[in-house]
């Protein structure tokens, strides 16, 4: 018995075990990619707002 088949009473399907890693990584990269883009966007927006405020104050 392979260590992989941990819970024993359910047949997880060999193909299912293999494919979930592939699907998961693709989806995971997409999820984290979207998050990273959102974070970068909001950081850039924050920096722009700050520099605008500084410009107004210095005027």
């Amino acid at each position, binding site marked *: 018995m*392979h*260590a*992989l*088949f*941990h*819970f*024993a*009473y*359910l*047949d*997880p*399907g*060999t*193909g*299912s*075990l*293999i*494919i*979930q*890693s*592939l*699907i*998961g*990584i*693709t*989806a*995971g*990269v*997409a*999820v*984290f990619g979207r998050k990273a883009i959102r974070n970068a966007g909001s950081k850039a927006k924050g920096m722009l707002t700050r520099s605008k405020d500084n410009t107004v104050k210095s005027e």
Partner: protein
Amino acid sequence: MSKTGSVTAHAASFRDPAGFIFSQDGTIYRQVNTDGRADYDHAVSSGLFKKLWDEELLVVHAEVTKTAAFGRDTKRYKLLKPTVIPFISYPYEWTFAQLRDAALLTLRVQKIALEHGMILKDASAYNVQFVGTRPIFIDTLSFAKYEAGKPWEGYKQFCEHFIAPLALGRYDTTDMIQTLRTYLDGVPLAIACALLPRKARFNRGLFSHLYLHNSAQRRHQAGGEAVAARTAERKVSNLAMTGLMASLERTVRVLKPKDAKTQWGDYYTFTNYSDAAFEAKRKLVSGLLTEVKPKPQLVWDLGANNGEFSVLAAGQGAYTVAFDIDTVAVQRAYRNKWPDETAARLLPLVQDLTNPSPGLGWAHAERMSLLERGPVDVVLALALIHHLAIGNNVPLPDVASFLAACGRNVIIEFVPKGDSKVDHLLASREDIFDEYDEQHFEAAMGKHFNIVAKKPVKGSRRTVYLFTER
């Protein structure tokens, strides 16, 4: 049922070595075996159970401390007494919306389990029940310690129990959910892929979780030990596990049922009652419900359509199961914004009374038939008799026998010939129903019941009866 130690396990509870459920003196218990000790203790100590209970996602249980009455069992670690689910229903009796909500609940439970260092070891739709219109996870022993890098063994089951039937419901008809009665352990991926139209491949989630998944299954199923050994070396990183869960959730969320027109979906919009007659019938039924003594706790509304009359029983405090054959009508009852107390006591389900749910699974005993889940205190059968007796040729004595098996009291509406709904049924066929009249109806019912009340529905030719068992 299998004898386990000194108690007898429920017929559906034989797969998991971690424990089983059983009933003693009418009370349901769950035994945790020593095999399930480590996982159970981890679920307690990690705070997983508390978190799931706080969010009302998992059925609450109490640990039974006095176990002498249950005899000795060397395998027993703990005995639990879970909160009672008023009526057990099965995925093949749910609508698209109910199965979708059960899928989202399973994913939510899985997400919280992962946050607590645990994982669902299976993803069966039978792990979910409904209390009124609220889904709740019932399998306390489904949680196992999560070892980082291990794949999710319940993934295939999740796809077959939830994604495949939902996809069929989305692209074909929502009635496809009832195929789960044939495919008791989920719709096989190959069957789902063969039945779905080509355009389903363009749904990203379905492409991954059904088509790609099915190809991988086909390619590797004959691989034997060599493939299994290679598979064992494969790891699913945290990123992949998070991505998999997000992808499954997104796939379920974007699956929505097609707007379908069905025979009975708009029944109450096109009823042959005037508003006044409808209101009179409502008052009449409500009054008859209060006449039933003792006060009913459990009511079945047979042919409930969108639950218009079921809510009268629920409003009076009875847990009411609203059955109808029409998936659109049942889904309306499920999605309706009922007041909270009503929603907690109203469970809409799909049921074809001419072919009610049979006993299914191993030894016909894993899933109970409809009648095994009764009898109940009151059966409502309004505007139903003509569909059974004329629409399906069921003789009146057989209808009466079935109703007697369903409940101790019956509130039933007799719809006579001359009523536009009966005339409609007879419009395209010969009238061979010589005995379809009040006299024969009362005689048939009289074999099982006494008449307590018989009242005409104002503004119609119909009569509503309250019968009580002899």
